[in-house]
């Protein structure tokens, strides 16, 4: 499959992208609301403000391609076909979740959908993606893997080793950095002496591109070109998407106002990825106000239904904790 150019996207594509981005937005809102009300004890790493990246990037993948999300790439799950109910079950960690409560939703793997589980160690997914690429190259199926990570990951040794290996071995990997300008509580300048992460690509001998992470079509264009290159055996690419997490790293624990200038957030909120998509769609007459209303209704309904079902789903059983450590268990070591 050859990924298209954003100009070739149809009205259907626009609405689908909008719907998935809105799903992230409202899903996050709902989980945080339920947490505030005390219904849910868990929070999440919100992608609010960053939704264009995961959708724009994954929209160029075919079903047999792989993705390894960062802790914030909620959109990769929707784009690969995970349902709202599955994700909510995973947030809660109940028996309906794919990991049976053993891992939080942002690190859940869905192997049948081509989603690899990451880990909580920021940047550890980068060499892992090289390994996925190695296996895809070996299978000679022309499939690719997109690896998502944040700006914080790029200071780690894993980032360097993973990109270097992918370049040296010419692996079909697209590295997508969600540069949201903050390492948890500190500005990225604390850990980076450069402005553009894409500059690092030159050191590995692969193309590096910086793109507006608020614009889903800009992301789509750049990533689909990189995906095509990887599919054709032309190796990896590093793509940096400039963005901001509107709600910060982990809002149920860290207060945004302790970390960040209010005005900066206001400035970025004027570049809301949903509005950018909406405006573009209206200009092209692909999305009307009625479409937006209808999609909002559908997504809201889907989330409400999922909440109702997930809250009725039983907790995982005690036995689950002791299962799947080894294929053939042998008791205490």
């Amino acid at each position: 499959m050859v990924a298209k150019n954003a100009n070739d996207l149809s009205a259907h594509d626009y609405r689908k992208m909008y719907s998935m981005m809105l799903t992230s937005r409202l899903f996050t809102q709902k989980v945080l609301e339920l947490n505030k009300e005390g219904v849910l004890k868990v929070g999440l790493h919100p992608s609010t403000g960053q939704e264009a990246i995961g959708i724009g990037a994954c929209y160029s993948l075919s079903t047999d391609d792989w993705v390894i999300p960062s802790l914030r790439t909620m959109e990769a799950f929707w784009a690969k076909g995970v349902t709202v109910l599955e994700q909510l079950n995973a947030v809660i960690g109940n028996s309906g979740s794919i990991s049976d409560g053993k891992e939080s939703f942002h690190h859940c793997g869905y192997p049948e959908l081509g989603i690899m589980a990451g880990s909580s160690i920021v940047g550890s997914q980068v060499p892992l993606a090289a390994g996925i690429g190695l296996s895809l190259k070996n299978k000679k199926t022309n499939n690719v893997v997109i690896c998502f990570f944040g700006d914080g990951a790029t200071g780690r040794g894993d980032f360097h080793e993973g990109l270097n290996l992918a370049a040296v071995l010419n692996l079909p990997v697209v590295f997508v950095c969600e540069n949201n300008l903050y390492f948890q509580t500190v500005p990225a300048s604390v850990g980076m002496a450069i402005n553009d992460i894409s500059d690092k690509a030159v050191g590995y001998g692969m193309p590096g591109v910086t793109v507006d992470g608020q614009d889903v079509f800009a992301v789509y264009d750049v990533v689909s070109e990189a995906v095509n290159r990887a599919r054709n055996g032309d190796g990896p690419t590093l793509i940096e998407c400039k963005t901001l997490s509107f709600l910060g790293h982990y809002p149920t624990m860290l207060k945004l106002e302790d970390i960040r200038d209010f005005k900066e957030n206001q400035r970025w909120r004027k570049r809301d990825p949903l509005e950018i998509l909406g405006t573009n769609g209206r200009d092209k007459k692909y999305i009307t106000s009625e479409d937006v209303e209808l999609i909002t209704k559908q997504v809201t309904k889907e989330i409400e239904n999922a909440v109702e079902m997930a809250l009725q789903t039983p907790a995982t059983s005690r036995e689950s904790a002791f299962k799947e450590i080894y294929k053939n268990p042998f008791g205490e070591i």
Partner: protein
Amino acid sequence: MRELEYAKAIREALFQQMGVDDQIVCFGEDIALYGGLWGATKGLQEEFGSERVFDTPISEAGIVGMGVGAALMGMKPVVELQFTGLITVAMDPIVNTAAKARYINNGSMNVPIVIRSITMSANNVYMGQSLEAWFTHVPGLKVVVPSNAYDVKGLMIAAINDPDPVVFFEHEGLYKTVCEVPEEKYEIPFGKASVSKEGNDVTVVAWSKMLEEVEIAASNLESQNISVEIIDPRTLVPLDFDAIARSVKKTGRLVIAHEAVKVGGFGGEIAARFAESEISKYLKSPIVRVGNKGVPVPYSAELSKYVVPSAEDVERAVKTTMDLPKA
């Protein structure tokens, strides 16, 4: 039967298994063109091609991380970390990714990787470390510590075929040692100890290169009419505790010897199992552990001989359990 060196037995296992399973790939530093510093992967690239056998940059976290990623996709990587000191750099992909992947995916994914790590006894504060106990502490990993050429071949084939991640500790000091090794393919199942020598007075548990020192000690003690039974667990996870318990029931005395530092070493775990078990009532005297005395293994051979446990240390420990005067 034909005799074969330890390093060549590893090589034979890789050749035989790669020949029948095209999902096996080998990579690491210096393993392809040169064939590994001790020749354990010599000729593999010529035979199986550079897509399956290749050299990597000096990149231990990347080697293991990439190996784990490939293993999650169904490949069976055998990766090499040239010295045990280097394994510290790759702890994250081993501990946080490989060991947890089956669990967090609730069994729908697994990591059939073999991580070869090479231990040395002496002359290097970094490379002379025996770190096997660390990995026994992480659920999800299996830990293999072969002591001879016969075992290393059968355990390597079992490790490659194992669906879970295996940390495979080879020993530089054993690479040139020889013993009878069948030419055909065979597996040694994990969790099955071998009785290296039968005896009646004291059980000594030891693995990897420590076993050589234990054998010397046993033969010295034999001439003093002390009969030592030697148990080699071969794998620490899973551990064949029953084999050790059976032996202690017979001898009533237990010494555990390893090159690793005594504090926090796996000998402590075995001793603790006895403390918790009914078997402890068969003990006629307290358990004695032999291990590195808590010193980085120094560069000077003259110095390192005081630090790495020797046959004399084992002999002394055996005599302690028998309440005999020590030389």
